[in-house]
């Protein structure tokens, strides 16, 4: 399915501890033409639940994905986490094997929302200022996103703790919705 922010295609699944499955997608993201912008993808799929524009996270983790050119993905962890990428103007990125968790037998089709925002604030502060790592992706990049399922490859993190709650706020958000066939998943 292709939309203003990009395209998503289901490529397979991996069964984890039941009833959890990891759906894998090829995701193509396009940045705004004239400015950098955050793009936010869900990491858990809940049919009938869109992505909230205000949420909390207990940890923010950064991954540098292997592939062509630089791609940094920040995972904002909570019961319903998201992955966020900071795209430069005119960017086009492709993530192979992007994992989205689903709990139970997957439906034949899923609605996946992609958000974009001018800024992503953690406890009122831009996320870029919270991380000791340059978060901006290259303008063109292709990366293997499967390491996102495994925290062994986290290179930088903030927060953490069983009672931690950081507020997450999106500035100037917009949403596109993608209907994606999950085949015989």
């Amino acid at each position, binding site marked *: 399915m292709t939309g203003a922010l990009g395209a998503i295609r289901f490529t397979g699944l991996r069964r984890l*501890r039941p*009833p959890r499955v990891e759906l894998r997608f090829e995701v193509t993201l396009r940045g705004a033409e004239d400015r950098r912008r955050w793009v936010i993808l869900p990491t858990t799929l809940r049919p009938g639940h869109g992505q909230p524009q205000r949420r909390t996270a207990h*940890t923010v983790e950064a991954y540098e994905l292997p592939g062509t050119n630089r791609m940094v993905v920040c995972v904002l962890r909570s019961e319903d*986490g998201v992955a966020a990428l900071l795209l430069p103007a005119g960017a086009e990125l492709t993530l192979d094997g992007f994992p989205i968790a689903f709990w139970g037998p997957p439906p034949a089709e899923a609605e996946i929302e992609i958000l974009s925002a001018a800024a992503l604030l953690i406890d009122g502060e831009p996320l870029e200022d919270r991380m000791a790592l340059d978060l901006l992706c290259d303008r063109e990049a292709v990366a293997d996103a499967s390491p996102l399922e495994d925290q062994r490859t986290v290179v930088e993190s903030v927060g*953490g703790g069983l009672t931690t709650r950081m507020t997450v706020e999106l500035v100037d958000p917009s949403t596109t919705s993608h209907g994606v066939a999950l085949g015989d998943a």
Partner: protein
Amino acid sequence: MASAGMAAPDSAEGHLAVAPAPARGPAPAVPAAGAATPSPAPATPLRRGPVPAPPPDDRLGALLARAVDRRTLQRKPLTAEERQLDLSSWRYAGDPDLEAAFDNNPALRRKAKGLGVQKLQHGLIDAGFHPGAASVTAGIPDGKFGAGTEAAVRAFQGKHKLYADGVVGRKTLAVLDALALEGPARAPEIEATADAIGAHIAAGMTSANEGATESSGVWYDYNYVAEHKKNPARYRWDDDWRAGLASPSHFIRTGWMDWRLRKGTSASAGIRAWLKGLTIAECTTTIVAVEIDALRAAIGDDAFDSHFGSETSAVPEKERLRVCQRGRETPLLGKIEWSTVSTDPAEAGKRPVKVGDWTYFYNHPKYLLKHPGGAWQGENAVYLGTNPSGQQLFSGLGATGKTEDALHDEMVKAYNLERDGADYVSLLSTYASNAPEVRKPNRRFLDHDVDYTRGLYEKYKARIPKQYHEESGEYDETIKREDIISAPEYEIDKTKRKGGFVGDIKRFIPAEVAKLRPVP
């Protein structure tokens, strides 16, 4: 007729399919300077007098030449130099019948019997060529070279581009011997230190989460059934496997997720087979198997077999390898310390653990009230160490490289799911086991059909304790992650549970492991 690329018969001359085993006889004397160099023991092709090759189109000529060749060779023993080569693997070396067969004097064939044939059958089984059920009783080959063994030999020879005549002589044994040599190391693979054993456990747990196929890997039954429903021809399923499946050649399943090694079977091969799969199990037995495999690696296959089950020596049944949820009833007894550490339940990320430690995290104490058939009452997890960001990471079956925070996220999601068929089946099996629909379950019950089993739950609800009733108010329908550690302790089925990290760490005692290592 031999096909192109296939080697000549076992007893014929020609190039060996693999390099022959190294010579075990006395080393050739070093020649004096200027003396004629004696011929060394042949290291590659064994050569005999040339046999004229028939014209390619002379099929009768070829058949006759082969027949003459075979007769000649079977009558003609190898030269003294050729006989210097002996079998050298742990499995075959020194067996008189096999050493004789290795010299074609005589080759082993149909109607032979004895320990040598039994070793041959073991080798064929390990290579994936089973001699058939009639040749194996309770996992032990019968030592009789019958039709099944002959067929297995032919298949093995075909696979290895040997002449598939079903006769075992020099070349077939050379391949089998080489396979045994290439096989698992018999000596300890790692040091009996806390670090080495811990690293092996961490790697083993990671490996258990990778590469599962329809015929390999460790699976939850739920997941394998899901694949079976999509592709029943490829993922064959038997409802009996819900209680567990692990290499029937090595194990007898004696209870739910409880396996005992067959008599006359190698324990080291058994635990490898368990982890290689196809295995249907769950998280606890998988960690037990990974821990047992670390013990095997630390003491070596030979010592492991001598203690926990061997092809060639008798090990009492009560001492043989067992894989089950109760670690103290397995070879881990006395090798692992169950130590309790005091730790702040909320202080995730700073647990006093070492790589390879076996830990446990409880879900919300009332998880089992909502999900009596669920797989998420807690997380058995092995500590992997930290990532570049310094986060502590754990792995359980189906969850690789997770922080404690992430494990809690998953446990919350699991708690907040609606009840499913497995939950109703569990309640019915426990409290309404004499109901006719439970005693003689139909396909919908076996498939955990949620509508059907929920209907039965309603029908037999009076037999089920009230705390499990959905309207009882005894448990919350949904929780937040903070609730896991803030909820008070709660007792279900005589077990008290408190959410979060359980300070009960299981860790090997290197000194106890070292006692089992072979003495140099």
